[in-house]
């Protein structure tokens, strides 16, 4: 617990008998890049949902920077510095890319101040800086519906970053992205995160990505953490291979939604 920025203790949640979390303990240190892997339906996304306040754990606590955040509303948790991205990008489909990100920038800078336009000078400048970091400047004026999947993913993460979080939770940042693009996207992404010193947790199915970008891997299976350690070590553990990689070789598309 000492020095951990984000830590979970004894998290439990079940959906109609399926235990998505069954006594999870997890500590994440400041600046760490942690990958969560595991079979579909293991409860990986549920962990993100609980940490960000979308779901309330049935038991256990989550602390962030030493303070308990269990049971807070998503918007309260966000203000403390935990942001997230989504497996299926959650963009505001009636807005352009720059507006999508600017809404988040405005939200972070204080939303309830007067009637100045959303894209006033300071907000635009801050937004463009983020778009630049994520290589999105060329699509700034494009509608969210006109983007390809990779760009949508990046926009989704850029939106989360606009909140200037200390911790970013990402749900499969490369799923649905053409495999030729995935390293480009991860390079851009990790570069941006490192530049800002953000701690990151990401759920991932692609072992190549995990191996290349994670500092640490936590293996999630049937609501428990099966193993945790550096990628080289964990990904060669036979028990992990049998439990996770064996299933994951096919790289199933669905990935499992949050919950039913």
């Amino acid at each position, binding site marked *: 617990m000492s020095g951990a920025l984000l830590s979970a203790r004894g998290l439990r949640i079940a959906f109609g008998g399926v235990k998505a979390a069954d006594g999870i303990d997890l500590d994440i240190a400041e600046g760490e890049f942690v990958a969560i892997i595991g079979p579909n339906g293991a409860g990986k996304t549920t962990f993100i949902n609980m940490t960000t306040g979308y779901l309330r754990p049935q038991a256990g606590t989550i602390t962030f920077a030493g303070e308990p955040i269990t049971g807070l509303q998503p918007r309260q948790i966000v203000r403390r510095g935990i942001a997230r991205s*989504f497996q299926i990008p959650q963009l505001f489909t009636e807005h352009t890319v720059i507006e999508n990100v600017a809404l988040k920038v405005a939200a972070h800078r204080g939303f309830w101040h007067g009637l100045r336009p959303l894209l006033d000078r300071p907000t635009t400048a801050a937004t463009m800086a983020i778009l630049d970091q994520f290589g999105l400047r060329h699509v700034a004026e494009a509608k969210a519906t006109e983007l390809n999947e990779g760009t949508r993913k990046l926009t989704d993460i850029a939106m989360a970053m606009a909140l200037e979080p200390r911790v970013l939770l990402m749900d499969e940042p490369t799923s649905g992205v053409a495999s030729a693009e995935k390293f480009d996207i991860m390079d851009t992404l990790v570069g941006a995160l490192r530049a800002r010193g953000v701690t990151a947790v990401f759920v991932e199915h692609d072992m190549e990505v995990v191996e290349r970008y994670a500092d640490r891997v936590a293996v999630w299976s049937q609501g428990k953490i099966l193993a945790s350690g550096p990628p080289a070590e964990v990904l060669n553990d036979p028990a992990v291979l049998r439990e996770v990689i064996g299933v994951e070789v096919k790289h199933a598309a669905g990935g499992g*939604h949050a919950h*039913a």
Partner: protein
Amino acid sequence: MTLLLLLAVLDGLAYAALVFMVAVGLTLVFGVLRVLNVAHGSFFAIGGYVAATLGGAVATTAAAPWLALPVLLVSAILVGGLLGPVVEKLLLSRIYVKDHVLQLLVTFALFMILEDVQKLIWGVQPIFQDAAVKALGPVEVGDIVYTRYQLFLLPAVAATTLLGLMWFLRRTLTGRVIVAVTQDREAATAMGIDAARVYMLTFTFGTMLAALGGALASPTSSLVPGAGVNMIVLSFAVVATAGLGQIEGAALTALLIGLGRSVAVYFAPEFEVVIPYLIMVAVLLVRPYGLFGSPELRRV
């Protein structure tokens, strides 16, 4: 006092039966098509008008008075079978991809058009055809005269409809397909279900139910221009209170409204008009998605 309450219950039941008949069709259509059909009230009125017209013809020619009863059902099937598919194909099928507001307004436009169509066909003079009530005759409860039609037939038809629908939706293949589409349209189409056909079937059936409601109401009340308007608002309240697409919820809500209304007439007549809305607000305060509703599946 107990007697008064019993009487209130008897009156409430008959009214609840009518409300249920109209609201259940609306609920069904909304559950499957996700379109809140304002023209449902027009179908109710047209069902009533057709039943009264046919009933009049039968009453003057036929020898057996009981023939007035099947006429009600025949009218409903006629109205639903003719109007339902036409409206669904020509109007609704073009707007499923559009905004909910636009879908609602399409049916609002249809309602306005049908209002005048009714006027052109049946005129403005109240029309009344009570052969069906006369065929069944009165019955006495204690000292009070009731009609068999209201006391037995209406609740019986409503109960049959409720049970029949529950059986149909749970036990038959078509029913389960409809339920599947109600619960998750995308998943259902992904499974290869012909959603277009399901929509058409459901809408036609919903229209028949509305028309049957109107047909059943016609022997006890006059048909006047604007007869459908009140029914629309009332059944909207029922749908929201019940929870989206909830058949049992519609039944329970109709019962609450029916009983609430007649109890109000006895003890607080001033509140009679607002009873449905009070019930709705109260229910939604406690259960934000309606009596039997659950939150829509939200993907994160």
